């Protein structure tokens, strides 16, 4: 049995070395996905804006300072591309930036004399999300500005937080990205390794040995494990560099859970492989599954707070039932150092059940397939 497994692993690795292109691509997909995500996730924290400042004086200086300083744990709320009014108008009018804040000439004078001033926020409103984000950020700046202006009439906020600190969105998402990459790599590599035996019409010689197909599946898993381990090793530093993911906090428990997700991915991969017997549909289906796990399960604890009514609530309910989401939160809280949670037995049990189900379906399908192996 063991020698048969080893034979499969050796053969597959040899084939990978002979034709490495496909493996390289399946390694690159999650890497590139992470890079893409890192590039856009900024959009939710920092928005580029130009400022046309026509006013001068201490009030103006303070307000501009506030505009530059306002930030979340992730970084500045505003990326001020220019404070030069002429350049600001030029950039906004030529469509190089979507927002322009005008500080009128009367700003300083009005403040000194206690009169009200209105700032003008120009927005290219092609996406309501952007419009809202600019409005809220300028409001935040104004709120901060007024804090010290008139303490008597100012309304303060007294906040009590559930967690000791905000988890930066980048870090929050990183756990999901890590799971995404483990799932995707294991699913694609196991799936295509299986499907290739049919696609290249070599399955028969393996199935017709007295060893049967158990060593085949285990052998594929081992090769897929090597590939997945390699991709994880590449991805962790990337998450650290691009998204500030605290990889130093990864504990044994986290590694254990990552292994569980590897088993999930490769069980799904085996099923996809025997179901389709072609590599063609495996990649996109794997991408869809891994992507759904990322967007639904890994974001469940976020979506939970706004999933009321409509499709979002249904998707959230699905995600909250699914064992992945709880496990991912356990990993997240461990890595963020909130609490050292022991194994979540319930989620673990359901996940193990799910893996067993995928695998039994694959085995049933394999057995059925054998009895219809035709000549031509």
């Amino acid at each position, binding site marked *: 049995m063991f020698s*048969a497994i080893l034979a499969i692993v050796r053969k597959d690795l*040899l084939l990978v070395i002979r034709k490495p292109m496909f493996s390289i691509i399946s390694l690159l997909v999650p890497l590139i996905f992470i890079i893409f995500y890192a590039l856009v996730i900024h959009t939710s924290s920092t928005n580029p804006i130009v400022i046309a400042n026509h006013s001068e004086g201490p009030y103006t200086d303070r307000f501009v300072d506030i505009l530059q300083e306002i930030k979340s744990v992730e970084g500045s709320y505003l990326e001020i591309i220019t404070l030069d009014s002429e350049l600001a108008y030029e950039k906004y009018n030529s469509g190089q930036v979507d927002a322009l804040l005008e500080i009128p000439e009367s700003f300083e004078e009005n403040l000194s004399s206690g009169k009200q001033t209105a700032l003008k926020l120009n927005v290219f409103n092609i996406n309501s999300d952007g419009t809202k984000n600019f409005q809220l950020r300028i409001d935040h700046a104004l709120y901060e500005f007024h804090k010290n202006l008139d303490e008597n009439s100012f309304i303060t906020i007294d906040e009590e937080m559930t967690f000791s600190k905000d988890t930066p969105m980048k870090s929050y998402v990183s756990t999901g990205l890590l799971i995404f990459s483990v799932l995707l790599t294991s699913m694609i590599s196991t799936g295509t390794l299986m499907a290739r035996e049919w696609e290249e019409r070599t399955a028969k010689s393996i199935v017709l040995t*007295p060893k049967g197909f158990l060593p085949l599946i285990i052998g594929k898993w081992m090769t897929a494990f090597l590939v997945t381990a390699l991709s994880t090793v590449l991805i962790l530093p990337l998450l650290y560099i691009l998204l500030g993911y605290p990889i130093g906090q990864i504990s044994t428990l986290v590694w254990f859970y990552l292994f569980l997700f590897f088993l999930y991915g490769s069980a799904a991969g085996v099923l996809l492989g025997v179901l389709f017997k072609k590599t063609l549909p495996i990649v996109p289906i794997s991408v869809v599954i891994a992507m759904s796990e990322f967007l639904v399960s890994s974001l469940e604890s976020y979506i939970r707070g706004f999933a009321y009514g409509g499709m979002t609530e249904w998707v959230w309910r699905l995600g909250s039932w699914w064992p992945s989401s709880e496990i991912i939160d356990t990993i997240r809280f461990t890595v963020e150092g909130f609490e050292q949670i022991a194994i979540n037995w319930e989620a673990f049990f359901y996940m193990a059940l799910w893996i067993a189900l995928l695998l039994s379906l694959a085995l049933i399908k394999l057995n059925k397939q054998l009895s219809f*192996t035709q000549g031509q």
Partner: protein
Amino acid sequence: MISKPTQEEFVVEINKADLIFNKNNKKEFKALEALDMKIKSGQIFCLLGPNGSGKTTTINLINGLLEPTSGDITVLGMNPSKSRKTVLQKISLVPQETALYNDLTARENLLFHARYYGVNRKFISKRIDNVLGIVQLENRQNDRVGTFSGGMQRRLALARALLTEPEILLLDEPTLGVDVQSRNAIWEQIRTLASVGKTVILTTNYMEEAEELGEQVLIIDKGKPVASGSPNELKRHIGQKQMIIHFNETKYAKQVYDEIAEDYEVTCTRNQLNVNTNALNVQFQLLEQLSKYEEYMNHIEYSEPNLQDVFLHFTGKALRD
């Protein structure tokens, strides 16, 4: 224990096997019907039939991939689908599609198979050398299979089947799409294997192959066995010998035809008369009768039925899809 004698005599025994796909269903399809087969140890057994007649299905019955809907099958005294693992230790299949890894070399392919099959480590290398020798691929063992011709690939697949020293070899269309030289080499190798006591079961739709190799031939058509026996027996079965007399000109042939048509089973086509006759005395009698036409006659030849006639006789001449 099962009774010994029949077991030793017949390594494969199939009795009245039916195989029906999608039974009790609209798409019900009888793949095999009332199949009977008895194969002796050390024999070359040939399954002959047109495309889609159920040859590969029969092979899959023997290697246990399929189970008959009704009827029995025993391979080396065992039920192949129930004790598949044991049976598979003693039989090897060379599938139609060869099932080789194109990106591995010939040797690497064999190495993988030997390891996967669990051939004892100590013997692997020696045995690979040995089988490569049998199929004469020693010189190309380190080349990738993707660069091999169809014939070489089939020989390599045969070598792979031999790696595990099987008692029974199942060859599914072993010379499909192979050139004459390779074909002769493969035939030679099959004969050698039979001579050292291996049972060889092969499927083919080439008459020549069945005639050349088959000690026992079973013709199947549309899943039903239509005839069986040695090639000679089969020929004898339909077997009219023919005397063919060629005349100089058509008119003489016609003239003679009119003369003898009443007494003999004869047909006339242009300048040629075909007389069906097996008995020697009848032939002499006819020759005597014809001696007066000697100057109008070109030559006389005898024809024996070949397996093609047998095949067409049993399967009909209609074109198959």
